[in-house]
Every structure is written in structure tokens, then in C-alpha cells.
């Protein structure tokens, strides 16, 4: 079981790195979906036994992140005719290099972080922190609103992975509530992206900062 958890967490880190380096939005959405499905297995693998709450949480999260979110994002993508991120604020090679640095920092920090409970795997905290950071980075460093929505989902994935440390202590309701929040947020953002695109013919969010009242 230890090996399974470790492999899963390394898969998580690799998908994060792929997201940092991929410019095709369609591929990025698929990678995000794979990440979500893999995370669905985590509650089960990390605790060795298949409890009811672990099953519910895993299945719910896998269904939401592996099927519903990708479907929503693909639909938005189809309607707005955007295929790839052309000019990100931070390029792909710098993103990968910064990512490697942050990964090293996450490992260093994860080794020192005092935890109230025994972590199921020494990789769990670094992988969770790195996924969290990848989400924030995608929101900050990419222009297209779709990638930013994806970054938000990845951010939630990181929180989910970190939550595995305390899965026995945290009530199921809290986790399910977080999932519901994310679902509503992505749903709203999917519609919003469509409307932004219809109004302005693009979804470059950094151009929206120039909007102000009374501008010509």
C-alpha cells in the first residue's frame, strides 16, 4: 500500500509539472482530469482500508473532477474557439524551472512541518503543497480565463491531497462541502468565461484590468 500511495503522489507531481509545461488547453484539461481521478484513489490507498467515508469522498471527487469539470471546460472551450495559450505571462521553460525550485522547497518544508497526525506517506505533504502552488501559479501566470479556472481546480486538488493527512479527523461533511463549493464555482466560471468571450471577443483576463468607468 505504501508503494501505491508513493507512486500515486509522484503521478500527482508529474501531472503538475505537465500542466506547467503544456500550452494546449485541451491537453491541459485532460491532464487535470487525470489528476482528479488519481486523487479519488488517494483516500483509499492512504488509509489502507475502504471505509464508507473514504469511498464516498473518493468516488464523489473522481466523478466531479474526472467527468463533470472536464465536460464543462471542454464545452466552454468549444464555444469560444480557443485552442492554446499563446503568450503566457511566464513562459513554459521558466515555469518548469521555477516549478522545480518550488518542488525542492516543498520537499524541504514538508520534512519540517510538524503534523498532529502521522502522515500516510512522507511524500504527501510535499506533493500536496506543490499541487497547491501549481494551482496558484497557473492562476497568476496564464492569460486565458480557462487556464485560470483549471488552476483553481488544481488548487483544490492540492487542498484535497493535504486534507488526506487529517482525513480521519475531519468530518466528511466538510470535505463534501468543499467539493460542492468548487463545483458551483467552476460552474459559474464556465458560464462567465462564455459571457466574457461573447462580450469582448477574447478571454485574456489581464486586459480586463484596464476596464474602468468613463473610459472611451
Amino acid at each position: 500500500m505504501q508503494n501505491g500511495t508513493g507512486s500515486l503522489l509522484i503521478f500527482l507531481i508529474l501531472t503538475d509539472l505537465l500542466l506547467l509545461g503544456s500550452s494546449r488547453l485541451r491537453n491541459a484539461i485532460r491532464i487535470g482530469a487525470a489528476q482528479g481521478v488519481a486523487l479519488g484513489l488517494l483516500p483509499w490507498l492512504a488509509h489502507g482500508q475502504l471505509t464508507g467515508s473514504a469511498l464516498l469522498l473518493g468516488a464523489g471527487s473522481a466523478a466531479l473532477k474526472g467527468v463533470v469539470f472536464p465536460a464543462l471546460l471542454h464545452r466552454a472551450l468549444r464555444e469560444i474557439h480557443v485552442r492554446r495559450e499563446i503568450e503566457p505571462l511566464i513562459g513554459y521553460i521558466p515555469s518548469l524551472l521555477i516549478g522545480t525550485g518550488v518542488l525542492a522547497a516543498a520537499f524541504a518544508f514538508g520534512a519540517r512541518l510538524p503534523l498532529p497526525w502521522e502522515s500516510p506517506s512522507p511524500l504527501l505533504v510535499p506533493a500536496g503543497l506543490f499541487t497547491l502552488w501549481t494551482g496558484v501559479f497557473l492562476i497568476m501566470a496564464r492569460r486565458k480565463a480557462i487556464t485560470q479556472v483549471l488552476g483553481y481546480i488544481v488548487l483544490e486538488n492540492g487542498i484535497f491531497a493535504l486534507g488526506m493527512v487529517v482525513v480521519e479527523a475531519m468530518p466528511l461533511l466538510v470535505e463534501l462541502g468543499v467539493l460542492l463549493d468548487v463545483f458551483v464555482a467552476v460552474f459559474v466560471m464556465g458560464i462567465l468565461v462564455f459571457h466574457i468571450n461573447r462580450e469582448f471577443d477574447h478571454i485574456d483576463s489581464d486586459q480586463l484590468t484596464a476596464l474602468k468607468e468613463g473610459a472611451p
Partner: protein
Amino acid sequence: MSAASWIHPVLALALAPLLPVLIQRVKALFAGRCGPPWGQGYIDLWKLFRKGGIASRTTTWVFRAGPLVNFACLLAALAVMPLGAVSAPLPFDGDWVLLAYLLGLGRFFTVTAALDTGSSFEGMGASREVQFAVFAEPALLIGLAALARETQSLSLSPIYAGLAAGGELPLRILLGAGFFVLYLAENCRIPVDDPATHLELTMIHEVMVLDHGAVDLGFIQWGSALKLWVLGALWAGLLPLGALPGPLSRLAAGAGAILVLAILTGIVESVTARVRLLRVPQLLVGAGVLCALGLLLTFR
């Protein structure tokens, strides 16, 4: 140290010309052709070594030295490169750094010989070769450092002996993927460079050796085959082949793994297209990141 460790360099020198032919035959199989005969590598070398050469008047001794130094560097690399659990002939602490620098020195002389001709095409190839080496060399060093930390030893032979006996599976997979990309890049294989291209503008390695002929070209071809072998041994050592009894069966398994890697290369060359030159650094940085992740995993 056993007699088997001296067999490996001899085996490498003898079998290396087979590797490019093997790759070509796999590609031919995919394309529905029959490919070159198995002995083509040896026939070419025999032909080239009997020829008298001619060099341009603008060139100096650097031009003649390039292929020879490159070949000598690879021979020296064979002296420290183990094949799986079979120890190298001359292992010492820190020889993995020497291995990286030997590859670098060989590249430096190839590049200098290309620049020495004064041809603009060769200069372009030399520039590209060095540009990609900037990304490939850190990846190689980081990967080797990960192996050194995992096995707690500073010499390639104990590193690979320890790795053959046991090691983390994720580390093997990460470094295996990273080293495979490096193997393709260093040997000028398809996602990075096309060894069969006929257009100087798109060549990288081939354009640097356009002016060489006869014995020099023979050393270049043998040298590139040896490079396939040395980097192949780097990859083959990651496989868990340590359980085999006796040095001879280990040698055979290692050589078999190198041949399998050549077949894999042929398949990759057949089914993928070359990436754009601008994207090559991204590929190599990806390999470097895989190696770096491998290194981070050893810090647990």
C-alpha cells in the same frame, strides 16, 4: 575486479557498430523496406579506414584532432562505465563527474573541429549542438547525483551494483524516462535531430561532420556508435538485472538491454516526428526536471 570487467570495453568496441544498423533495420521494418545488411556498420568502417583522406586548406590540426579526441574520450568513458552489476575496469571515487566531463570534452572537440572548417553551415550546427548541450548536461549530472545519493556511493561501479541489487521503483522509472530522452538527444536521434536528413539547414550533428572524410569519418562513425553504447549502458544499469548469477550472464543481459534500447529508439524514430528546434530545450528541460524529481525523492 574480474576479467569480466575488461570484457565489457572489448565487447562495446566490437558490438557498437551493430547498434546504428539495428536502429535502421527497425525503421526499415516499419517502413516496409528490408534495411541494410547486419554487417553494414563493419563494412563501412573497413571501407573508410582504407581510404586516403583530404582536408580543406583552411583547416588546421584542430580539424584532424576532433574525431580522434572524441573517440578517445569515449574509450576513456568505457573504462569507468560499468554495465549493470559488472564493474568497470578502472573505477574510482567521483568517476561519474569524469564521465560527464569526458562526454563534454568529446563534444567540445567535435564542435571546435566543425568551427575550424570556416563553413557557415558547420558553424550553425556547432551552435545548435552547444545550445542543446547546455540543457542536456545539467540533466545528466543531476540524474547521476540522484543515483549516487540513492546508493550512497561515489563511483559508477558501486552505484550500478547497488542499483542492480535493489532500489526504489519510482526513482528507476523517473531516471529511466529522463535518461532515455538524454540518450535520444545526445545521440542525435529523432525527437531532437534527424540522422537521416539531407538538408543542411535542419541538421545538427550531421552538419558538423560534413567536411570529414576517410579515416576521420570512420572514427566519427565508430565514435557515435560507441556513444550509443555508453549512454545505453547508463540506461541499461537502471534495470533490475542484479539477480542473475555469474558475470557472463550479467554481461549478456546488459548487452541485451542496450540492444533493446536501440530497438526502442528505432520504434520512437518510426512513430514520432521531430520536434521544432524551438521546442527542443523544453524537451530537455523536461528530462532535467524528471532527473531533479528523482534527486528530490532521495532526500526523504
